[in-house]
């Protein structure tokens, strides 16, 4: 009885401590910066083929990738993403469950902030600049790429 009790106590302690000691420290993410244009023949560059179906829901016809960042994001640690023209987007990993991740995307220049929760196999595409001359920039985030 005593031995069983000892084993139970030690086991419960180890089980309780395991998530803290072995828990996930961060989540890998692929962050890409895209430029969409309304003018010209429809075209999606090969690097964005995986997004073509999602991008087809917009009014933009030509898509190209202008930047990419592959990073393991720590929780609550902002990751700046530079945009052409000196603008910047700040992406922060807020929370995660087993199959979802929640990000905050801030665009200080247009005073816009979004909180996005997406499943493991999905991507966010967010416009981060207002349209100018038929063109706009977007950021796409995919957790666990």
């Amino acid at each position: 009885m005593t031995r069983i009790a000892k084993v139970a106590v030690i086991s419960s302690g180890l089980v309780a401590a395991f998530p803290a000691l072995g828990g996930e420290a961060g989540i890998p993410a692929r962050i890409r910066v895209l430029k969409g244009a309304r003018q010209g023949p429809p075209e999606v560059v090969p690097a964005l083929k995986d997004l073509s179906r999602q991008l087809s829901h917009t009014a933009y016809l030509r898509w190209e990738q202008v930047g990419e960042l592959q990073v393991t994001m720590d929780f609550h640690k902002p990751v700046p993403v530079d945009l052409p023209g000196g603008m910047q987007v700040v992406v922060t990993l807020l929370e995660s469950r087993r199959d979802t991740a929640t990000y905050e995307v801030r665009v200080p220049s247009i005073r816009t902030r979004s909180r996005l929760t997406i499943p493991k196999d999905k991507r966010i595409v967010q416009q981060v600049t207002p349209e100018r001359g038929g063109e706009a920039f977007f950021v796409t985030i995919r957790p666990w790429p």
Partner: protein
Amino acid sequence: MKDCGVFAHLLGARAGELEPEEEARLAAHLGECEACRARLADDRSTEGMLAEGLAEAAARRDFTHFADEVMARIPARAWKEPEHRGGLRALKAFLGRHKVLAVASALAPALAAAALYLFIGRSGVAPEAEEPGVEVVSETLSPTVLDTSDGPIILVNDADGT
């Protein structure tokens, strides 16, 4: 004589047990039945003999030291002052004998709480399940969210809709 069977069970009745009517009928029968009178006399002669015999036998026995003799026959270990194992004293005694277990038991909840705190702090895991969703707040633009099978698309337009 023919009614003896009817009154036989009444012969052993004690005083006051019979109804007045039964008592009268029994008296009438005894008045004319010699056999039942003889039987009643015989019953009354032995009445009380058993009780008197038991009392006499008990009187011959000296019970002065009865309790001491019984206790003397019980093994000493069996009648030692019982321990109150269910109480605080038993718990103290148990913990005194198992110090490591006592310390581990005290630390286990604290360790579990600390581990949970660290886990939540490090991973940012929300206590409740986070459903997929989009929440956009903009001070300058008008956001539009398109849900697609591959994930959400968030478009922002100038306030005038352009």
